[in-house]
């Protein structure tokens, strides 16, 4: 039961975070690119719940959901999106580079496909040092046409790395439809070429994703090597906030996908079969909303980095004893 509520909590947090963050474009609070993951929450929530805190994760430009799932504090995330010194990267990374080493979040990433071998490297470390950690790499359908994914899958396969490749197939790479750009119907079939399981999972069903990820994680921890997961999902918004997706897809397509929105469906499931009560879920939703509103307040209050910050951290000079920033020190 508890993990069911955790999945819901995670999905609802991601949805509300994206909704509220997207609204901060008013008054130019946010000027950088924002890539909303609304619609894809079941994938991030389901996969991340199958991981331990010291497992590794690499992400994409659409990385807010993965960061929340992995446990990056939403105050740090919101302040980072605002470009403030209280952000996860002190305002030097922005939305596309949110990272938190203390929870194994090795960064969102602005280059399509580029973060995939990083997960293999983290997995290689786990293998060499025998730490039993696993690494997950999230990427979209667009990245599956990048050579580096294929290099990474081959390396992971021949070295039996404890890594899980999670393709969030949301049907569009920016505006390029995957039925044009991908040479096969199911991207997961590409896993055959690298002698690893290629699982197809309903990316709008968090429990299916969770189960699939759990199996892949056990396989990785048991030393049986990598798994490729293709989660069929959909992003509700355009590629980024300023992009109008109706230029390249139909409103009826959006409508059909929103009919199977994972959040209300899972809410009904929790009430009917999961033993949750309406009050319990209402309270949870209210609390999440309040937390995100507080994150916005935190981000607004946090100062912009001083100009002296500009040239710091190009090279290593960070006082490592200051890494463990606790939530209490942020409020």
């Amino acid at each position, binding site marked *: 039961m508890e993990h069911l509520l955790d999945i819901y909590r995670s999905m609802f947090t991601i949805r509300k975070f994206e909704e509220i963050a997207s609204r901060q474009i008013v008054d130019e609070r946010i000027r950088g690119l924002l890539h909303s993951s609304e619609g894809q929450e079941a994938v991030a929530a389901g996969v991340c719940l199958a991981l331990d805190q010291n497992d590794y994760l690499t992400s994409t430009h659409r990385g807010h959901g993965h960061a929340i799932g992995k446990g990056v504090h939403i105050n740090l995330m919101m302040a980072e999106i605002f470009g403030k010194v209280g952000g996860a990267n002190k305002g030097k990374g922005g939305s596309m580079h949110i990272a938190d080493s203390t929870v194994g979040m090795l960064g969102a990433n602005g280059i399509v496909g580029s973060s995939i071998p*990083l997960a*293999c490297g983290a997995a290689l470390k786990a293998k060499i040092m025998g730490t039993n950690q696993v690494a997950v790499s999230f990427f979209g359908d667009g990245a599956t046409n990048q050579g580096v994914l294929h290099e990474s899958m081959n390396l992971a396969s021949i070295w039996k790395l404890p890594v899980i490749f999670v393709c969030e197939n949301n049907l569009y790479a920016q505006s390029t439809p995957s039925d044009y750009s991908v040479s096969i119907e199911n991207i997961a079939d590409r896993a055959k070429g690298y002698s690893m399981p290629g699982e197809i999972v309903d990316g709008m069903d968090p429990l299916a994703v969770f189960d699939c990820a759990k199996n892949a994680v056990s396989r990785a921890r048991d030393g049986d090597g990598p798994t490729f997961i293709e989660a069929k999902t959909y992003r509700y918004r355009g590629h980024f906030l300023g992009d109008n997706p109706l230029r390249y897809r139909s409103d009826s397509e959006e409508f059909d996908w929103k009919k199977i929105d994972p959040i209300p469906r899972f809410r009904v499931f929790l009430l009917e079969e999961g033993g949750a009560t309406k009050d319990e879920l209402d309270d949870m939703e209210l609390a999440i909303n309040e937390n995100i509103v507080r994150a916005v307040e935190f981000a607004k209050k946090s100062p912009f980095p001083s100009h002296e910050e500009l040239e710091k951290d190009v090279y290593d000079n*960070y006082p490592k004893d200051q*890494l463990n920033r606790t939530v209490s020190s942020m409020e």
Partner: protein
Amino acid sequence: MRTLSYSGAILEGFREKMESDEDVFILGQGVTNPWYVGDSMQDLDKIFGAERVIDPPVSEQGMNGVVVGAALAGMKPIVVHPRVDFLVMGIEQIINEAANWSYMFDGQISMPLTVRAIINRGGEQAAQHSQALQAIFMHIPGLKVVMPSSPYDAKGLLISSIEDPDPVIYIDDRWLYDLTEDVPEGLYRVPIGKGKIRIPGEDVTIVAISSMVPEAEKASNVLLEDGIKAEVIDLRTLKPWDTELVLDSVRKTGNLIIADAAWRTAGSAAEISAHVVENLFSELKAPPVRVTLPDVPAPASRSLEEAYYIDSGDIINAVRKTLDTN
């Protein structure tokens, strides 16, 4: 003390550093094969096992990404590209990931990565096996670039590179592999960012990079016969380079020659020249002179190679012209 060759010194640096630090591992194409890396990695796989000395498939972008990820996860990886030219296939990971993460991560995590790439000019190997691309890496904030010219520095700079918390591009040159000199046993460091005066002099400063250092020394000896005292500086590190050492020397000599066996336009020599002119314009007796390769891809035929590559003769000519114009 005993003497070691340049490549033998590199090998010893790898071996001693791997013995002392279990976080160090090597991922390198052909590291088990002398055809690719000479004797500079001989038997490391036998000593440390295939798990720490990995000879991967040809996948430069994947390899470079793997070492970046391993560094993010706390290891001190070394990736080896037997030609600088091959590193270019994976340069995306070096520029977009390795160089940026310290900054993008606000210094939360360091990137203790060593990228070793070998220049192997000549031998009619032509345009895709002979390139000297240090300037590309010198341009990128977040990277460090070292180019040792002697066996002692080859070992000491390798150890410093592996221990450094930032990504270091370590470029060695096959033309130097047979040089020998006294090299101490055991771990020692040559500081990154510090050049060295190889030959002191007061008439002209010759800043030389990597394989041009022995050529500059030859040139200096020839010039001495004419009573010209050339100061030879081995830059050793290109980023961050030792601006103080060079400026102090030019303050003394008023003349500057920069010898870099790489392309001319937007090259390392151009950067050094610009910096000196900006800072010491009024103290220069003549314009700085760059002794570089022409902006031409490396040719194959030996006759064209002869015309293409530079040596002590080019440095001597540059010095004579400069002093004549004073």
